[in-house]
């Protein structure tokens, strides 16, 4: 097969990679906010739960987590599809890393902002959603950009739980054609291209949150 034919074949796996990455980045962000805000909760049980979640998912390997969800969980009576296990594993994993970012950004918001909110008689919930988070999100965005790229790269591991993503397609194609050099060179460049697109999107999102928070970077 020519390079262009191989490229067309590889694009077949691109769809799964794109879906998995997009879904787990979004769910991962939700996990990150839940975990990060949870770690600062005034309720001790919530704090502990959030801390346990973050420690377990940051302390063990992503591939072990994916294998656990896919091979071990059925023994507890929960059977996930490969797609379900892949998205759940990636989301929980990247969410645990994101939770630390969310927590750090919230803590870094100036104390005067909390005092002012209190002086204006805001409730705790209003302070969080209207005062603290809009400012904290701006601080989180650059690190979230890195985590999104990390998540794209991590998505290649779902090929090992039988999902036909880009990496799986490449390995399959290698089996059929043995044209290892063009296949893996193309695959690496496709991932690189995806990473550039994702990085561009995250920078756009970063600029958008800055505008929404009323901050425009002085250039």
């Amino acid at each position: 097969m020519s390079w262009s034919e191989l490229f067309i074949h590889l694009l077949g796996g691109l769809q799964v990679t794109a879906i998995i990455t997009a879904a787990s980045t979004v769910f991962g962000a939700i996990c990150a906010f839940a975990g990060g805000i949870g770690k600062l909760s005034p309720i001790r049980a919530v704090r502990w739960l959030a801390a346990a979640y973050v420690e377990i998912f940051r302390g063990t390997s992503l591939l072990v987590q994916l294998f656990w969800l896919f091979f071990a969980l059925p023994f507890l009576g929960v059977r996930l599809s490969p797609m379900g296990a892949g998205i759940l594993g990636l989301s929980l994993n990247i969410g645990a890393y994101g939770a630390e970012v969310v927590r750090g950004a919230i803590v870094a918001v100036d104390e005067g902002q909390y005092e002012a909110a209190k002086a204006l008689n805001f409730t705790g919930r209003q302070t969080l959603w209207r005062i603290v988070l809009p400012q904290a999100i701006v601080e989180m965005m650059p690190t979230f950009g890195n985590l999104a790229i990390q998540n794209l790269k991590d998505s290649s591991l779902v090929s090992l739980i039988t999902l036909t993503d880009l990496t799986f397609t490449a390995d399959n194609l290698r089996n059929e054609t043995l044209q290892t050099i063009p296949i893996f060179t193309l695959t690496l460049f496709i991932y690189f291209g995806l990473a550039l697109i994702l990085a561009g999107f995250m920078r756009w999102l970063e600029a958008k949150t800055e505008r929404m928070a009323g901050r425009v970077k002085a250039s």
Partner: protein
Amino acid sequence: MMTLFGHPLNTASHWTFFVSILPLIFKGLIITVEATILGFLVALGLGLIFALLRRVPVRAVSWPTVFVIEFVRDTPLLVQLYFLYFVLPVYGVRMPAFITGLLALGIQYSAYTSEVYRAGLDAVDRGQWEASKALNLSTVRTYRDVVIPQAIPRVIPAMGNYLVSMIKDTPVLSAVTVLEMLSMAQMIGDRVFRYFVPLTTVGLFFLIVTLFASALVRFLERVLPKQGIPLK
């Protein structure tokens, strides 16, 4: 009773199963630790080369270096591993999967460590360079006796964090038949068709190892002299 590599697998209960697989998981752990340490040495060496090449004031050298670092950083470890594992033999380079695996780990992490070196070197005050110049020290002596000793305490904690993160990436090597902890658990599971205990055990082992390693990094961060470490 089923056996694996001569070890009996006692599946009478979760507990006996757990105890009977411990020796096998330990064997996997040793491979995991070896791959991490050797891979990290590759990352430290290669990363330093990248960091220095990037500082060469010739664009024909520094720009390709920047591209290579970005490319390696933005592509998945697993695909890089496949690339090395399947492409190198085409050129007649044959080596054990373990060596290919630790090279892949080392290459991926060299992109990260080169950034750490760069940040560490950049963080050394400009006045130190100027003072070295005023004292007529050669570039080599400036690096060796003035800049690098001050950069080391800044570099070590960040390197430690990448070491911890590399431990967690070693299971990827199971994709090319390296018998580390995860593939050991997988083999045990395939043997007796029970995956819950072996995979949970491996998760627990990873948790213990990374918690221990992180504590060690934090300890180092605390005891390192902030003013620098002489290279003698």
